[in-house]
């Protein structure tokens, strides 16, 4: 398949004017004695969106960097990219078939919601303990593994939801034990360089869990069967124009199709998300957790034990990852290192959403899900599309860290 250079030239054009905007704009604002906060970002966006014309206008009027201008120019950039793509590869399924695009985006959102749930665990850990767990993906992997073994090997007749519950308990307990043994010493002052220690010890945990699992269950891929078989339904009954259900697939409006396994996973994720929100905003313990995340000392004075909250947060975070894995074990095949890309995704999401921001994590998850689905579906050469899959999120991560390290909803650094 020939992929003309339109697309790459457009990308180069965007990068060039974006870089010019990012480098020059803050200086223009300084010279005009205007507030320079986030003007590098604004310059980059406007430069990429409108090229030299936009930059001249921007430097002439120097409006403050508001979400309005950032959002508008961001949208325009996406439009340019889409147009260049359509021009470069007019026969691509992504250009010709609206149904394909809609299906890809919906599936991206579905998977993204589950990624979001997993990243929510990581962001919870970050907001309470101030660390990023590099073993987060391993909790995800173990959640799936335990569910698989519980429902397929040990107790074949077990209700899958009980299997998910077992996975949740297991990952919760594992998180609590690890926190008590290895992270607790950080706040009791037994560790000399806590920041570096946290990175390395969670990294060590990831390594340990991967190879323990590999040693115990072997490297052959495992795949749990669908949790639930859906009945065959058509609405309206004759044509199924609105909704068509088969045991393996859901089709909405004859346009968007979602495998039922993914739909089940989405439902589990949404139930859990609401349970988590209820827990954090309506129960005493949840409020205590949020209090600790905002001000550790002040929370301690009001009778909350921050140490216990640390353990709870880490265990809870691990559990969220575990349940995400449990929900997805019926969708993907499972190997001991399935957690590595999952970890990477969580990192991308929390950086994109802003470290420590709960809504950011969820929205970041949705964005990443869509980007990966479009990347996998639209990149012309299918072999390349699959091979580059791990890179899409990483490119987002790099861009966010360079342009706006606080992410979409992050606190100031």
């Amino acid at each position, binding site marked *: 398949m020939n992929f003309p250079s339109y697309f790459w030239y457009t990308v180069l054009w965007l990068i060039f004017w974006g870089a010019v905007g990012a480098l020059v704009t803050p200086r223009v604002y300084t010279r005009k*004695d205007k*507030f320079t*906060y986030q003007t590098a970002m604004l310059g980059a966006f406007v430069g990429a969106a409108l090229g030299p014309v936009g930059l001249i206008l921007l430097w002439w009027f120097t409006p403050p960097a508001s979400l309005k201008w950032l959002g508008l120019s961001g949208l325009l950039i996406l439009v340019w990219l889409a147009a260049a793509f359509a021009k470069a590869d007019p026969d691509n399924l992504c250009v010709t078939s609206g149904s394909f695009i809609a299906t890809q985006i919906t599936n991206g959102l579905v998977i993204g919601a589950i990624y979001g749930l997993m990243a929510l665990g990581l962001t919870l850990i970050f907001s309470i303990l101030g660390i990023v767990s590099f073993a987060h993906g391993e909790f995800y992997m173990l959640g799936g593994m335990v569910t698989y073994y519980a429902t397929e090997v040990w107790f074949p007749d077990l209700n899958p939801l009980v299997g998910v519950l077992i996975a949740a308990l297991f990952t919760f307990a594992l998180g609590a034990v690890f926190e008590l043994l290895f992270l607790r010493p950080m706040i009791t002052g037994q560790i000399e360089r806590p920041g570096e220690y946290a990175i390395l010890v969670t990294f060590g945990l990831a390594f340990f869990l991967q190879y323990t699992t590999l040693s115990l269950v072997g490297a052959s891929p495992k795949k749990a069967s669908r949790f639930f078989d859906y009945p065959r339904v058509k609405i309206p009954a004759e044509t199924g124009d609105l909704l068509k259900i088969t045991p393996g697939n859901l089709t909405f409006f004859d346009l968007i199709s979602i495998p039922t396994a993914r739909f089940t996973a989405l439902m589990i994720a949404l139930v859990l998300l609401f349970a988590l929100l209820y827990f954090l905003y309506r129960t005493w313990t949840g409020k205590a957790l949020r209090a600790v995340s905002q001000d550790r000392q002040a929370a301690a004075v009001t009778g909350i034990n921050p140490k216990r909250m640390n353990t709870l947060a880490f265990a809870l975070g691990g559990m969220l990852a575990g349940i995400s894995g449990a929900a997805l074990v019926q969708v993907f095949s499972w190997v001991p290192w399935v957690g590595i890309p999952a970890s990477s995704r969580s990192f991308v999401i929390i950086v994109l959403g802003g470290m420590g921001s709960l809504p950011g994590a969820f929205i970041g998850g949705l964005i990443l899900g869509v980007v990966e689905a479009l990347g996998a579906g639209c990149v012309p050469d299918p072999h390349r599309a699959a091979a580059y899959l791990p890179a899409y999120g990483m490119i987002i991560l790099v861009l966010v860290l360079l342009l706006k390290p606080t992410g979409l909803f992050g606190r*100031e650094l």
Partner: protein
Amino acid sequence: MIELDVKDVSKNFGGLLAVNHVSFQVRGPELIGLIGPNGAGKTTLTNLLSGALKPTSGTIYMNGQRIDVLPPYKIAKVGLGRTFQVTRAFRRMTVLENLLVPALAMHPTARQAQFVKKAREVAEFLTIDHLLNEYARALSGGQQKLLELGRLLMLDPDFIILDEPFAGVHPKLMEIIYEYITETNKKGKAFLIISHDMETIFTLSQRLLVMAFGKLIADGPPQEVRKDPAVIKAYLGSDSDKPWQPERKRVPA
């Protein structure tokens, strides 16, 4: 002779004016105290001077060179040195290595061995010479403060900013710090000292700057500043006809 010109400097933290159009000049080896209630913007002002923060508006010139646009290391080379409110010794480096860093940074082509003797003298002056090969983390809080002063002696700047040099320091060490300030001042170096220790700052400084709510509200000799109604108001929160007196307990030798 040192010349420092702070012209109309402001720093805006997302709407909060931490430093609000502050201007002052320093000519020659003055010994200046900077006081003000908590949150007055004293530390922010020192961070602006040393380049750790960039002002939102205004300019700072030192010896004819504009320094507010320079990175911190260049400001250090122009001749401005500082300590921090919380001591920031290089904890996992020995005392000797701590002292060598600024000396080597100032002399790009020099060799380490050239400065070992000077480092030893500095350590002797600050009574930490027996600790030269110890890691800085093994030092007591007060000794770490001395080590910071030692680094400044090795850096040998013309203008020295000390942020709370007397806070939580053993009286014996306080004497050494006091001696360091007066001795160095005699050698023609200017000082800007932030302190909550009123009695010391009043006896020590020749000129007092008072900040409140980001503004410079008084600038003059200590005796005059003490009677300034604006200062009294800032400290007591209300108008009072009684001139404010610092408590006098002891004056270090």
